[in-house]
Structures are given as C-alpha cells and as structure tokens.
C-alpha cells in the first residue's frame, strides 16, 4: 500500500510541476477573457459548418484586405462544406502570379484549387507601408499562437471601446479592452451589417466575430475533428486492453504471494 501512496504522490508532484509550468503571461494587470462557447470545444466538438462558411465570408470580405492566411489553399475550403464547383468559382475570382512562361515572363491567371490563398501584400514592407507602419500578422495559426486563442480572438474583435478618461492613446492607435497594453494598430472593422450573410443570419458584431473565430480555429487546427474522433476510439481501445492486460497480470501472479 505504501508503495501505491508513493506512486500517487510522485504523480501528483509531476502534475504540479506541469501545472506550475503554465507559461508565464505578459506582465502588467492581467486581462480576463470572457469565456465564449464554441461548437468545436470539448471531446466531441465539431466545427459548425454554417459558421465556418460565414466565417470564411467575413475573412474574405473584411480581414483579407490586410491579413494573409498563407498556410491555406483554396482546396482546403472543400473541408468547410462547400462544393467543388463553389470552391473553383471562389478561387477563380482571385488573380495569382504564375510563371515564367515560354517567353520568360511572369503572368497573372485566375487561382485554381491548388493555389495558396492570395496574400494581400507582396511582402512585409509593402504591408507596413500600407498600414501606418504596423504589420497585419498572418492568421493561419493565430488561434494556436495565443493563449485561449479562440476566446481571445472573439474578445479582441468585440473589444473596441472608447478609451477610459486619462488613457494616453498614441497617434493612429485604437483602444481595445483585451489587447495587451490596450493600444492596437488595427481599427475596429466589424460594424453591424458589415457583411450580408447568404443564409440570412443576422450579421451582428458578436455573430461575425464568432463566425470568423470559428473559421480561424479551423484554419489553425483543420485536423481537430479527426484527431478527437480517433482519440476517443484509441482511448476506449486502450481501456479495454488495459482491463485484459490487468486480468492476465493477475492470472500470472495468482500463485505468488506478494
């Protein structure tokens, strides 16, 4: 028995080490993020396909003016419930640079399924020049690149406020309740009715933020649904295997006093 207690003790020490190791966050007064409920949370969470498609629309019509998603290709949109014809049509609305051709010239052509999402700026310098010196970051893995990424993105997009009295806002910056330091270069881009949803969902700021966050969460972890489904099957298998293994061990040790 005492050995069992020791084992439990050691495991708890280990767990405490891990929990204690939760990455230290930015200094200054901690900002508490509101906990937003998303369809893709939990063991059985799946991405709401309607929300994904609406979120893509928000990205395409609003965010993509400044933010790239260079890890994504148009073919990936097949996974959010769009048909191949729809995705081909979406891709064809973008002109991408290809080449060189037989004359050694680069040329533009409509995008195909295999093309990466077109980037709004040719390079970081062009992006900064167009954005008052600020660089709109790539959004491909943004949800994984922030602590509680989905909650953070939703809070950020709905967190634009008038600065409190006495707050020194720098030139060209905007006040956001959830951005570290509260000064963000990105202006508030979501206003009620900013996009017109094809499925007639009302485009409130909260709805658009929720949809585009869902889209970004999928973009960051497109494997998440498959991963969780596989995990449930593997853990169930292991529990059964564990029971059998323990029974075998008991049988083997049955004639040994210990």
């Amino acid at each position: 028995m005492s050995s069992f207690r020791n084992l439990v003790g050691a495991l708890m020490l280990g767990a405490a080490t891990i929990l204690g190791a939760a990455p230290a966050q930015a200094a200054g007064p901690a900002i508490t993020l509101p906990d937003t409920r998303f369809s893709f949370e939990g063991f059985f969470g799946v991405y709401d396909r309607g929300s994904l498609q609406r979120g893509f629309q928000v990205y395409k019509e609003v965010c993509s003016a400044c933010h790239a998603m260079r890890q994504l290709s148009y073919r990936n949109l097949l996974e959010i419930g769009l048909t191949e014809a729809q995705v081909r049509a979406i891709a064809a609305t973008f002109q991408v640079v290809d080449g060189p051709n037989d004359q050694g010239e680069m040329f533009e052509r409509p995008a195909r399924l295999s093309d990466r999402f077109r980037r709004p700026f040719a390079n970081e310098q062009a992006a900064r020049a167009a954005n008052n010196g600020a660089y709109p970051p790539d959004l491909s893995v943004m949800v994984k690149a922030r602590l509680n990424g989905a909650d953070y993105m939703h809070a950020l997009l709905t967190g634009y406020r008038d600065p409190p009295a006495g707050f020194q806002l720098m030139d060209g910056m905007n006040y956001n309740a959830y951005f570290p330091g509260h000064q963000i270069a990105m202006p508030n881009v979501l206003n009620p009715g900013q996009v017109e949803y094809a499925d007639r969902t009302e485009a409130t700021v909260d709805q658009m933020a929720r949809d585009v966050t869902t889209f970004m969460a999928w973009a960051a972890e497109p494997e998440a649904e498959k991963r969780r489904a596989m995990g449930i099957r593997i853990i169930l298998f292991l529990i059964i295997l564990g029971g059998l293994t323990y029974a075998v061990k008991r049988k083997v040790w049955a004639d040994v006093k210990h």
Partner: protein
Amino acid sequence: MAIGLHDSTISNPVIRWVDQRLPIFTMMQKEYGTFPTPRNFNYFWNFGALAMVTLMIMIATGIFLAMNYTPHTSYAFDSVERIMRDVNYGWLIRYVHMNGASMFFIVVYIHIWRGLYYGSYKAPRELLWILGVVIFLLMMATAFMGYVLPWGQMSFWGATVITNLFSAFPIVGEHIVTWLWGGFSVDNPTLNRFFSLHYLMPFVIAGVVFLHVAALHITGSNNPLGIDPKGPQDTLPFHPYYTAKDSVGLVVYFIVFAFLVFFTPNMLGHPDNYIPANPLVTPAHIVPEWYFLPFYAVLRAVPDKLGGVLLMFGSIAVLFILPWLDTSPVRSMRFRPIAKWALFLWGIAFVVLGWAGGKPAEQPYVLISQIATAYYFAYFLIILPLLGRLERPLALPESIALPVLRGGGPLPAGAMAKPMEKA
C-alpha cells in the same frame, strides 16, 4: 557439439542453428526470460521500461518527421505546418513526437525519483546511476535542440538565451558562443547543426541506454526494501511476471499519452512557438519547456550570471557524486525515518523550482527560487552526508520473502516451477 559452437538448449532446429553460432536467443532467454528479479517490485519499477518504449517512439516518429522537415530559417516553420496539414497523419506523428518529449521527461523524472527514494544509486549500482545521469543530460540536450527546429518565437529566443549562457565564462565564453552558433547570432547555420545533432543524439542515448541496461544486468535490480535477494525464494523470473506487470503500466501510460496527443496536444507547449521566429521582436517572457523550468529557476536564483550558470550545471553535476555523498548503508527510505522526510522536502523544493522557473524573474519568485535552490543543494551536500552518521535506521527485514511468507519458508511448490513452463 562441434568445437567453437555455443552449447544451445533450444530445440527448434533452425533457431538452434543460429543460436549455436550467434547465441542471441540464449542471451535473450537469460536476460529477459529467466533473469532473476526481486519479487517485491511495486509499479515504480515500470518506469525504466516506459522510458525505453518512449525512446523507441521518439526515434520512430522522428525519422518520419525528418523526411518532411526542412532545416532552413525560411522554410522550417512552414514545413512543420505542411506536416500538420498535408502529410498523411503528419499531425499525429508530430503531436506524438512533441508530447512524447514531455512524456519522456515525466517518465524519467519519476524513474529518477524512484532511484532517490529506494537508494538505487548506492553500491554496487553507482555506475548504473551515473550512466542514468548521462542519459538525462543527453536527453536535455536533445530536447533543447528539438524545440529549436520548428523555428517559432520560443525556438529562436530559447536558443538565444540558452546558448548565450556560455558567454558567462571568462575569456573563452564569447568564442564558445560564436562557435556554437556557427556565426554571430542564432541563424541558419545554428538551425542546420541543431537538426543534425538532434538526429544524432537519440542514437547516442540508445547506446548509453544499452550500457545502462548491461550494468543493471550485472548488479541486478534494486527493490522497494533495498536489501539484496538472498536466494531463489526472493526472486521471480522476469518473464512472465514482470513482462505482465510492465504491460499493465504500459497501457496505463499509453492512455495518459493518448489523452495529451488527441485532446490537449498543445497544453504543454507555449503559444508563442506558433509565431514564426523573428529576431527583431523579443517575447515578453522567454521561458524554456516545462521540464527545464526547475533548472532555469536555479540559474535565475543567482544574481551573478557566471554563478547562475555554474550553479545550474552544478545541480546536475551533484547527481554524479550522489553515490558517495549518501553515507548511509541503508538503501530504501522506508527504513530511514528522517532521510525520508528530507527527501520529500527535496521533491517539494524541485516542484517549487519548476513553478518559480515559469514566473517572471522578479520578487517574490527570486527569493522563493533561492530558498528552494539552497535546500536542493543542502539535501545532497549537507543532509545526506550527515544523516548517514546521525540517523538511526529502522530494522531491516532479513530477506525479501520473509515479510510475505511467514517464517521465510520455501515457496509454495508451483511458484517456481510454473513460470519456467510458461517461458
């Protein structure tokens, strides 16, 4: 038997033919079949086997990752994302490898704790213990270089901070750092060599693990009582008894591992490592992976850079001489009423260091780190040497079998005979 052939007892003619010329089957039978193993192991004795399995998992997944990874500052980050998206089951292979590193350290920390608690480092197992510390050091180097490969913000800045530690050494320091980097900052040459070494080191670890196991099979295993087996009534053949018991532990281990991989694959990582490395933007807090935090806290507990570096290396180095620091002949802490609590306190100090290592380098965390660091060293350098002389250990049982078999009589008839049949 022809002259020069091994005297094989195996009856299958084909295997016998091989075994006479290359007795690997006889060896396996001796080392993993009939190998006499103390009968009183608890589940702490699973963790060596678990570490071995984890090493194999890491090498297997790593080889497939290397097929798809590009060690170049411009492509490394994107090649990892390509593995996650476009390589068949690439996400699975990468998450197993990434969380496998954490699982490896969890297992090895428990394995080391087992050694500390039951005195497995004492004579005659000093060299076995030292080889274990060598493996631990190699693991730390391997894990550190592996974390650099995705070329995220923490990769870059972690590499910068840790390699810069060597600059603390007078005169040669700066030269060592330039030599490690292959240039004047962490850059493409650094990434290239870290990738090369990260691929090499696991095989070096495997070699030292072989020596570790070879040494173990000379001295035999320690056990929870810390006393030597006196005869066959104290031991059991490794197979099937401990193959069965290790299998139970292995499945439980896989459940924990699977939970991490499939449901919280990024919990033990740092979100900043999904931001591509940028030498012009320093993260607010640069923290190493969780398993380095106790040593990181020791480093930061000292106000002087060189002192901190020396103390951090010292916190590992002290483990090498532990067999000679502990002067008590009693191995198991079960029979050491004072040392037991001193060791539990050491365990708490280690966890506290891990916690403080993840906090910013400011008060009160620095003071807490200093107190915990002081105790970490005091345990090894003051408490253990003194307690061996001052402490009065409890009476040791006469044999391993005695406490379970009243009177220490012979085993029930079947216990020794049956396993041989099964084997």
